């Protein structure tokens, strides 16, 4: 703390988050929200992607068309406009309850809308990733499962998903990194995540440049953590004799 205070007074680099308790707690809470937003959206988007891909493998046209429409729509529209559409457009239709002071409170708040919008956005990319993973499975494996008496659902769940998951992991980790970067868009609807609190801090202390560098470093570190974690997972799940040789 003393060091950073001295850095401000003598070096002219004002990093309030390291010596001012208020700024520090704000920043840590922002970091916490970014991480929570990312983790929930990551799990939700992966589940969404798996469900949607299960629909794609069904021999019915209508569910397939719905999934294709969903993917096409979310991939070809700007995520920021999607978030506004959810928060302002759909948010206006959601009923409000009243809090202890009798003020109207939306039943779905801005953090929830950010979760929904980002999960749907990342989920659309996951569908494409898992679809490619399933298409990469050689049909002889599916035939072998059928010959062993697996039902269609069991083949999908116990044979195709585990294999497709391994094939999809590198692309999935790229998409999760994209998702982590996209959580910054929650800034636009006032979710106090990392970018939002950093903006508050640099507005209060006029240390824009120093705070931006901190922000950049923190995001790069977060991306690094995700990349390393996913890479480890890839190695743990690697099957001998399966997948591209490295």
């Amino acid at each position, binding site marked *: 703390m003393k060091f950073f205070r001295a850095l401000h007074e003598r070096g002219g680099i004002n990093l309030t988050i390291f010596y001012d308790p208020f700024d520090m707690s704000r920043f840590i809470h922002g970091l916490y929200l970014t991480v929570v937003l990312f983790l929930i959206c990551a799990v939700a988007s992966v589940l969404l992607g798996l469900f949607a891909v299960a629909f794609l493998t069904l021999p019915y046209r209508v569910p397939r068309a719905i999934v294709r429409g969903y993917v096409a729509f979310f991939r070809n529209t700007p995520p920021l406009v999607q978030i506004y559409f959810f928060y302002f*457009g759909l948010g206006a239709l959601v009923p409000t309850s009243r809090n202890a002071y009798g003020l109207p409170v939306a039943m779905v708040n801005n953090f929830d809308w950010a979760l929904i919008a980002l999960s749907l956005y990342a989920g659309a990319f996951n569908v494409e990733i898992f679809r490619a993973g399933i298409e990469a499975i050689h049909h002889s494996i599916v035939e072998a499962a059928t010959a062993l008496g697996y039902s269609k659902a069991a083949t999908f769940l116990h044979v195709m998903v585990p294999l497709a998951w391994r094939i999809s992991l590198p692309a999935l980790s790229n998409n999760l990194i994209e998702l982590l970067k996209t959580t910054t868009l929650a800034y636009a609807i006032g979710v106090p995540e990392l970018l939002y609190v950093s903006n508050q801090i640099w507005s209060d202390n006029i240390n*824009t440049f120093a705070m*931006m560098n901190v922000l950049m470093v923190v995001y790069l570190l977060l991306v690094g953590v995700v990349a390393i974690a996913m890479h480890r997972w890839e190695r743990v799940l690697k099957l001998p004799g399966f997948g591209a040789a490295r």
Partner: protein
Amino acid sequence: MTRDRGPSKFSPEVGIDLAGARKRVGTALNAGLAGVLLSILVVCVLVLAVAILHGTDATVLAKLAKWTPFLAQGFLLNVVMSLIAISAGTLGGIFLGMGQIAPFGWISWPSKVLTQIFRNAPWLVLLFYCIFLLPYQVRIAGQTFVVANWLRASIGLTIPVIANFSEIVRGAMQSIPSGQWEAARSLGYTWRQSVHQVILPQCIKRMLPPWMNLYAVLLMATPLASIVGTQEALTNLRTALQAEADGRLLLPFYAYLLSWFFIYSYPIARFSMRLEKRFAIH
């Protein structure tokens, strides 16, 4: 269902032919038309939903029509910003990508570090950097030019494009069989000559689909410029909504803008998918 499966049960050739015909019809119908139809459908469903929720009201459509020129003006800026960023980003990305695989450490290391930093930083953070740190005006030959907000935003969008394209270039160049490098070398080409005259020309085909993907991602990022105060489509939309001050318009207006982006981007996405399939190495 039964209608489709019927003929193939009795004569497989007919079935295959039918499937082929359907594919051809699908290809002919694809891209633009499907995108336009889907967008119109989305807008119709949303307008209908609003009408049901708030009572039938034809004024919504009239309001959409009234603000269309204003939105179009903003959307044009989105397109212009995306074109500036993709042009400058492609040019910069080629050099940074070549730098990454250059056989000289003092070029390749900085290139790799720059690529990784700007590829992994959030677009919005990079945009903030450029908006706050680029000069508001520049003096060239004694004349002072004001750097418009949209131009600074374009530069902010160019940086991640450079880094992403740099990775595409590196990937494509490394996917060229090493025999090509060796052949160029044995013919006496220098490193620079072999890159320019042997390797890069072969990369164009491989780089085209990911480059188009990158353009789509870039276009989807242009509304971020509204956060930093550029008068593009999203800003204009919000201005229009403020002027109207009518809660019923929120949903249809945002849906309308989404459909604009969709109509512009979907044909590009379909085209790049087709190219990818055509160029796929089996």
